């Protein structure tokens, strides 16, 4: 009985984790077998390894720390990129954007569109911690969808010294 309860709890936790990004995962599952499509899931430990490796290339000790602390807060990343003549239509993207907002309750933070090129950033933030980050990028012929599962406190981003200045 105890084992059953633990299994049920684990399944529930898993469902909660993916529920905020369900539409994005479904979208990748639908298009991942297209021609010239790359779809990949990178677990958190691999992202950490990557950021730790990148930190080695920096001479600045502060920058090394930033890389390391950023890496620590990524739990999972999944992305799909389609090059050349993707079958992802503007309608598909509009539907995805609608589902991310309405079904997955992600919030649209930034939206930039220039002609057929469009970038939309979705986030789910709770108590100053970014839980979900989804990027939808649609070019003339290319398409990319990036999904991050994180527990990134805003303080860590502040440490990273992000700047909006032109320079």
């Amino acid at each position, binding site marked *: 009985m105890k084992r059953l309860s633990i299994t049920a709890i684990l399944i529930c936790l898993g469902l909660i984790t993916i529920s905020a990004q369900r539409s994005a995962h479904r979208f990748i599952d639908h298009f991942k077998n297209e021609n010239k499509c790359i779809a990949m899931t990178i677990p958190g430990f691999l992202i950490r390894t990557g950021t730790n490796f990148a930190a080695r290339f920096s001479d600045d000790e502060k920058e090394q720390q930033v890389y390391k602390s950023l890496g620590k807060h990524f739990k999972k990343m999944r992305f799909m990129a389609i090059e050349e003549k993707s079958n992802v239509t503007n309608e598909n993207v509009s539907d995805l954007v609608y589902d991310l907002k309405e079904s997955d309750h992600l919030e649209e*933070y930034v*939206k930039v569109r*220039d*002609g057929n090129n469009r970038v939309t950033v979705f986030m789910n933030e709770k108590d100053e911690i970014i839980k979900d980050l989804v990027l939808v990028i649609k070019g003339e012929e290319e398409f990319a969808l990036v999904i991050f599962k994180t527990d990134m406190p805003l303080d860590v981003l502040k440490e990273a010294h992000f700047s909006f200045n032109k320079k």
Partner: protein
Amino acid sequence: MKHLLFIFLSFVLTTTAFSQGAIEKYFSKYEDDENFSAVYVSPKMFKMAAKVLSEQENQDLQDVVKDLKGLRILKVDDPTGSYFKEAKKMIPTDEYEVLMTARDEGQKLHFLTKDNNDVIEELLLFVGGDEFIVMSFIGKIDLEKIAKLAKSLDIEGAEHLGKLEKKN
């Protein structure tokens, strides 16, 4: 007396909601139109940006971002001036105070504001000419700081905001 106050308040609230709705409607109409370039920055993004902006960042920029609640920009080629005319018809500009109008190298610039107790809560910029730009800032707006923001940000059309500095 109570009744009168209630009617007056209802009128003010309805008018405010109507003008906000008209702007929303205008942006919604064109934000997915491929002829237009569009930018939308949500209130949450500004809130987050204010938190994560580094201390090294310009203090003015931090102050502006902290008080902003939303930004929308639309830009389109408009050689006949039809979009400019349509926007002026659709958006109830008479509910705004004209802060400044200017003509500069064939471009018409209109800066409109809406304030509450001397605090500017909305800044609307129309640029007409070969291209039409409409820009809407919502939040607590300090014109001088917005003008400085124009220098810092790499957003098309933001350079027109620099003219606010000259006005001040």
